[in-house]
């Protein structure tokens, strides 16, 4: 500005951003859009591929029938579907109480050395490859029991779920407003009742979301089941016996040199994805129905 006209206020021109800036804006925006689209792309491809390859062999028999011996057409994976449900339920039965308990403890009381150690351990555990977790469960359960079992598979899946549940629970419990705790304490609630009746319910949506994520991840794990639950071509609900599961079936069937089995492997994968989606939908809907949430 020239000093000759110091006080003349400069009128802002009603013109838009410069061409240069608009070009940048458009460029960066489309780059972001592309990145976002790339995130969706793999999932879209997976689902499309699974539908294309898995739908043809999907029928009621797949859900209700047992696998047929090689060469015989048809048959299903009833035992593997039920097996996966049981294994995931076993894992959840182990990981949810321990994980939620530990997460709440970390959030509410977790100061000091021991708490830092627990956090660190959970973080490390989250990064341990799942096949290593399988080896651990093998050493912990299979070796002492002397055989492969559903229980060992459940323990392996439980260990896999644990870190996600612990750390997410800690985070969501921390997000519960202080004012809720104050209200409960001012009414004469002891601290443990405040946690149990106010803090945990208020954090339940987040805890369920974390649990669903952990379950979904565990449901698709193959490696840790290979030397724990092993697999089973027959119908078995016994927890101390080897148990069939979808991922292991998919693994076996996909590698097999029989076209029939390969097709069923695709269907198995489709069913697995459907199962996980269904599970998370059911949990979320149940949660939304809980009283007090609007």
């Amino acid at each position, binding site marked *: 500005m020239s000093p000759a006209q110091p006080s003349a206020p400069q009128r802002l021109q009603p013109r838009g951003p410069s061409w240069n800036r608009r070009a940048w804006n458009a460029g960066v925006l489309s780059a972001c859009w592309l990145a976002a689209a790339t995130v969706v792309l793999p999932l879209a491809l997976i689902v499309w591929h699974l539908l294309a390859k898995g739908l043809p062999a999907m029928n009621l028999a797949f859900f209700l029938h047992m696998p047929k011996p090689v060469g015989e057409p048809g048959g299903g994976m009833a035992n593997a579907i039920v097996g996966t449900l049981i294994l995931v339920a076993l894992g959840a039965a182990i990981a949810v109480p321990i994980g939620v308990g530990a997460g709440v403890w970390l959030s509410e009381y977790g100061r000091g050395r021991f708490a830092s150690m627990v956090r660190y351990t959970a973080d490390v555990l989250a990064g341990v490859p799942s096949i290593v977790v399988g080896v651990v469960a093998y050493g912990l359960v299979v070796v002492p029991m002397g055989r492969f079992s559903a229980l060992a598979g459940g323990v392996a899946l439980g260990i896999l779920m644990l870190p996600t549940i612990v750390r997410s629970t800690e985070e969501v419990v921390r997000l519960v407003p202080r*004012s*809720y705790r*104050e*209200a*409960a304490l*001012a*009414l*004469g609630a002891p601290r443990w009742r405040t946690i149990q009746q106010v803090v945990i319910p208020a954090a339940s949506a987040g805890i369920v979301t974390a649990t669903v994520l952990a379950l979904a991840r565990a449901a698709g794990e193959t490696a840790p089941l290979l030397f724990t639950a092993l697999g089973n071509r027959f119908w078995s609900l016994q927890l101390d016996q080897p148990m069939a599961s979808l991922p292991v079936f998919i693994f076996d069937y996909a590698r097999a040199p029989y076209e029939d089995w390969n097709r069923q492997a695709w269907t198995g994968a489709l069913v697995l994805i459907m199962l996980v989606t269904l599970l998370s939908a059911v949990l979320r809907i149940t949660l939304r129905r809980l*009283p007090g949430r609007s």
Partner: protein
Amino acid sequence: MTLETPSIRTILPEGRRGETAPEARAGAGATTSAGAAAPAAHAPGAVEPRLVTRDFNLWYGTHQALKQVSLEVPDHSVTAIIGPSGCGKSTLLRSFNRMNDLIPGVRVRGSVRVSGLEVYAPSTDVVELRRRIGMVFQRPNPFPKSIFDNVAFGLRLLGLGNRTELEARVEDSLRHAALWDEVRDRLGKSALALSGGQQQRLCIARALAVEPEVLLMDEPASALDPTATARIEELVLDLKERYTIVMVTHNMQQAARVSDRTAFMLVGELIELGETRQLFTRPRQKLTEDYITGRFG
């Protein structure tokens, strides 16, 4: 699994090294504090006021937030605490039911007595104490539960499980909080769906349900619109019949409208406590006069 908070136990009254020597105190009534706010000593046998503090001090770490506060709150009255922001009104209120215990680094010295109970005595059960003192906060803070469950919360804490009795007491409390007619047909709905004013009355109902001896209110209307504020003020006037109320407010008109007695605080000290009419028309202290005439604050 009784996980009583350890922090609550660790900040019981203790002398402060290097400060004015803590006087040994034997029972209530025997006090010799001076100043305009000095409460009258009680003749032996006379009924002690519902709430009494004597030479009460509180520190947040090294910051002293309350200095030698002595006051009395008689039964069935409304006492307003006024003063500029940051003068320690909330801190004082939260000292009555030991809500400050939740803040790390808080230390206290001096005496607070509620219904004859020495609040900071090592033998005092904080949970029991808080059941006898209701509290309403500045921001309405209903639980994310149904309206019914909010009011029933304290009753269930007391072990009341009988559905009919619960329903009767919930209705009673909601009526006392002047909320019943607005919520009677949606008790099962979430409390969070209510308006701000309704939420605050729900919080009052929740506090009243367990029939506290004292009701503490920290600027209960400051987050509300004028209509909702007027309803809360009406309610306070009603509740006085049955409860002893201490209400913090930054609004002098509000103090004048609803309170019987008013306490004026300034930087941690109680400057003056008197009949509301007297305090606003003929303040004894120059500082009080300056404040109520708007010369500062």
